[in-house]
């Protein structure tokens, strides 16, 4: 009981301590270092180094003030008022910054607010809160970080935090105690340092393992989209353009002339694609994509081919006006699973929005967007570096067994009259007979049209080596014919063109799609890192009843680039049902409501966890008080522990003791099967009848006997 009372008093003392002025300069130094690391992290990811310098300056002044005035219990009233005003001015600056298009206004606010709040670091709790502020800065930096250098700042912050906790525990222990016992000799102190090093190494090794394990095992759920996450951008006002505007396009381009190797310009992102063009692509990071599912990032498609050049037969755009939750609706969602991708543009790119799966809704900062006839999404200006947008898509996945049952004979009838299909069956006049013959021979044994597609694809995958720099296109020749029969090597456009021509010769509608491959997935940042040389082309085949399905005949790529598995959880579904955007509050309010609805589940869960924490603390507090006030209720805990072990043993044995039996008689009855029961019965007797206190050793022995009885040899 005394022990309980001591614990309770210690708990209360710790609470009082947290509210007393913090006088430890070492602790304040750790807080300053941690906050500096967080502020530098923001500066690093935003490249706003001036912001970091200002932030660190305010932190330094604020920390000095707090250490010398707050710790001494003489805060300056004017400073307190000034802090209050400054915080509100910073908030105003945030709102102005959002609408004035300042760079990263949320990051600026986080840094400046952190600095201002430093003036109010009064007690230990405030110092903990300062770490919270640092964590918010790191959060901002994390959402903007695309590479692993952010990890350095994170490690420094973590080290400062742990050092803070260590020092705080040491100082508290020293203050609470009448004396501090230290090893007396220099030799022992040297040993202490060595031991500490060993402990630190142990902690680092085990900690690294623990963190890695948690990181790997942490399920990553696909939540609802946070529209333009933490970066509210000025919307593009220009009308969507049918013209593909590619900022990387060279100023002068000679037809058929090999361009500069390793450029960021992919000649497929234009109004037409010339197969005679040759050139390599650089390793430049073009964009980061956050997606719970693997996918190719589709741009748009070409449907007409003249033997050398691919183009779109119809450049008409359909402007999208339908908005929901501030997003543009491309199509209604069906019964397929949906997932959300966020695209972070790192380099200036064409005025095309990349999408994964079957895009149904796009959240993009523009007044208007439009779609072309091939499903490509256009905006009025090129995508500038720093642009962020999200896409809600349906998962694209169809079972091959189902596709084998699709009857393509409908193309011979009225279905063929559909404009898109008709165009997708068009063959260039330069198509040679041997190309058609090759298509027929490859697919001679195919049981279904789907098998014909697979046969053509596999033929291309296996028979033609990939070559970044194939020979120049000969004048007045068919590019497909030259690839298939003359050069017999090429780049993805050649494979795709050859597959489409062969499929069309077999009356299977197909078209040429350009976009990006998935890129390399970085498990640390959770981004697909898409580089210039991930620019790619693939084939889309129209399946009646299923629409356009992708196939990729290029070696080294995914043959069936359908959407991968989506990370899901019960949270995903629950969060997906909340939609406050239906409240008619006007567009601005709808944006706010939509954003709020996205954050609401997090807030609710956080609030629930916080409430649970405080409730638990309250209940534990009450329980402790109750235990102090009702000592009798806790009497004989040790005896009861032994009785519990005995009862558990009887239950396991399925051998209840009759009321008339003594413990020993009962044990004797089962002596053959459980000889140890007799000893356990003796312990129970001793616990029941011996007035001296029951020792922990006796309890341990009872538990040990239980384990021996029921552990399989």
């Amino acid at each position, binding site marked *: 009981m005394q022990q309980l009372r001591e614990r309770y008093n210690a708990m209360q003392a710790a609470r009082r301590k947290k509210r007393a002025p913090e006088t430890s300069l070492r602790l304040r130094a750790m807080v300053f270092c941690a906050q500096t690391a967080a502020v530098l992290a923001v500066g690093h990811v935003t490249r706003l180094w001036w912001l970091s310098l200002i932030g660190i300056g305010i932190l330094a002044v604020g920390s000095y003030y707090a250490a010398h005035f707050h710790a001494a219990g003489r805060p300056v009233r004017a400073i307190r008022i000034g802090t209050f005003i400054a915080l509100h001015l910073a908030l105003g600056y945030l709102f102005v910054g959002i609408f004035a298009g300042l760079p990263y206004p949320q990051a600026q606010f986080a840094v400046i607010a952190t600095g201002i709040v430093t003036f109010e670091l009064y007690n230990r709790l405030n110092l903990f809160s300062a770490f919270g502020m640092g964590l918010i800065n790191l959060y901002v930096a994390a959402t903007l970080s695309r590479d692993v250098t952010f990890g350095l700042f994170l490690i420094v912050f973590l080290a400062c935090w742990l050092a803070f*906790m260590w020092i705080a525990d040491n100082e508290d222990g020293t203050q609470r105690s009448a004396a501090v*016992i*230290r090893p007396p000799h220099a030799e022992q102190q040297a040993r202490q340092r060595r031991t500490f090093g060993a*402990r630190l190494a142990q902690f680092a090794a085990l*900690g690294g393992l623990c*963190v890695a394990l948690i990181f790997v095992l942490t399920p990553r759920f*696909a*939540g609802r989209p946070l529209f333009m996450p933490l970066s509210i951008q000025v919307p593009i006002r220009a009308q969507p353009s049918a013209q593909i505007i590619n900022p990387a396009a060279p100023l002068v381009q000679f037809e058929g002339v090999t361009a500069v190797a390793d450029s960021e310009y992919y000649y497929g992102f234009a109004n037409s694609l010339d197969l005679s063009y040759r050139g390599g692509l650089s390793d430049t990071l073009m964009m980061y994509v956050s997606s719970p599912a693997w996918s190719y990032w589709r741009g748009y498609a070409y449907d007409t081919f003249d033997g050398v050049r691919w183009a779109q037969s119809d450049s008409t755009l359909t402007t999208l006006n339908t908005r929901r939750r501030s997003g543009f609706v491309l199509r209604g969602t069906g019964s397929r699973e949906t997932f959300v991708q966020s695209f972070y543009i790192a380099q200036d790119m064409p005025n095309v929005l990349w999408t994964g799966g079957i895009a149904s809704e796009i959240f993009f900062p523009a007044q208007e967007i439009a779609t072309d006839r091939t499903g490509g999404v256009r905006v009025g200006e090129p995508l500038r570096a720093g642009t962020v947008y999200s896409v809600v898509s349906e998962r694209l996945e169809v079972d091959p067994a189902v596709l084998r049952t699709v009857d393509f004979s409908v193309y011979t009838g009225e279905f063929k009259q559909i404009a898109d299909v008709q165009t997708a069956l068009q063959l260039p006049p330069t198509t040679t007979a041997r190309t058609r013959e090759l298509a027929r021979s490859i697919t001679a044994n195919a049981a279904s049209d789907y098998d014909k597609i697979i046969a053509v694809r596999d033929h291309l995958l296996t028979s033609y080596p990939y070559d970044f720099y194939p020979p120049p296109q000969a004048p007045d020749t068919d590019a497909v014919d030259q690839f298939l029969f003359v050069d017999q090597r090429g780049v993805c456009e050649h494979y795709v063109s050859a597959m489409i021509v062969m499929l069309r010769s077999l009356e299977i509608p197909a078209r040429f799609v350009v976009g990006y491959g998935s890129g390399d997935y970085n498990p640390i940042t959770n981004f697909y890192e898409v580089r210039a040389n991930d620019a790619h082309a693939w084939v889309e085949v129209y399946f009646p009843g299923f629409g356009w399905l992708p196939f990729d005949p290029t070696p080294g790529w995914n043959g069936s680039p359908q959407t991968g598995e989506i990370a899901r959880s019960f949270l995903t579904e629950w969060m997906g049902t909340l939609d406050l955007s239906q409240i008619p509050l006007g567009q601005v309010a709808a944006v706010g409501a939509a954003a709020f609805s996205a954050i609401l589940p997090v807030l609710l869960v956080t609030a629930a966890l916080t409430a649970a924490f405080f409730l638990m603390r309250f209940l534990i507090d009450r329980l402790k008080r109750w235990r102090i006030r009702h000592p009798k209720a806790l009497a004989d805990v040790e005896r009861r522990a032994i009785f519990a072990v005995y009862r558990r043993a009887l239950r396991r044995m399925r051998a209840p003791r009759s009321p008339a039996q003594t413990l020993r008689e009962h044990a004797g009855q089962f002596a053959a099967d459980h000889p140890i029961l007799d000893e356990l019965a003796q312990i129970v007797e001793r616990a029941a009848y011996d007035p001296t206190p029951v020792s922990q050793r006796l309890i341990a022995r009872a538990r040990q006997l239980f384990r021996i009885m029921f552990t399989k040899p």
Partner: protein
Amino acid sequence: MLYLFGNQTQVGWLYVMSALLAGVVGLGFLLSRGSLRRLRLDRSLSSDSIYESDAVQVELALQRSRGLAAYQVELTETCPLAAPNDREQRLYAPLIPVRHPLIYAYPVLVDRRGVYSFPALAVRSGFPFGFFRRRAHISAPTSVMVYPEVRPLARFPLLEKQLAAQLSIMRAGHGGEILGVRPFRSGDSPRHVHWRSTARTGQLMSKEFADETQPGLTLILDTAFEGSTTTKHNPFEWAVKCAVSVADYGVRRGYPLRLLHGDARLPPFDHALVWDVVLQLMARIQPHPTNTAQLFSRAASGSLVVAVIPAPRPAHVAALTDLRGRGFPIMALLIDPISFGEADSKADDSYAALTANGIDALVIRGDEDYAAVLSQSTKVQGSSRAAAS
């Protein structure tokens, strides 16, 4: 929160951050589990014979038997020898080395006689970062017997007056009580060899027994005390102190000492006791209901009876008067409970009755130096009364 935001924003770093925080806290939990294991404590005291009010030093030697050193350990040492308010002290060890004891010694002013056991050392640690607090108790069984305070009386005139005529120096004989040890002499019974002394001195030693036919001093300590003994300053403790001081005086003068008490939890001795046994008895003795007449009737014939009474009542007067009637030279030391804050006292009445019956009596008050009162006991009756009045 970070994890939930990670799900919402799909920012990988948030997963890293949440994994880091969870990992550190999880590791803190794992490491804290073993932080207080394998700690060993040795406790020793600077003296073997400890008397009340002595200053002794308690030394703690704490170490970890194997593994890595323990860090950030808070210790709560409870020393039962100290006064109740000074018993508990908190210590802090930033590090407890492995296989190299960490020594800490602290002085204690021994508060009160008795037999004490040190409770286990309570240890607590927030290692590694204070996320989790672990508690444990390290036991180092240490029992200490604290003898009562012995104030050597330079003189005890009242006793000398009574004893001078009849008592002689205690001598060795064939009694049951061991008087001491001496070198083995030819003709001694081998059964009387004192093996412990023989081992210590390297010479064959023999026990020497007291001659129990010798008349001596019978000290009666009445244990029928119902007052409070929670504080150190109480009539019963005063009675014990007086008794042990008188016993010391008697033993120093070489008188065989018999001790009669009413504590049924302690063995009754009807023969003369050596000094160590007297001290042990006096260290252990506690108030216990007893039959006064029966206790007093056990006095050995021919000896002087000194009765120490912490709460005098008419029954004591009757018993002492009866003894006096049987020819015992008697002296009564009456402790006055009122001077200790007790509500009820019959000390004055008892004193009056005893002196009226011709029994030497002395009233000792709580605010007096009892040793001084005993030393001046020739005129103590008058002076004590005067002080009391």
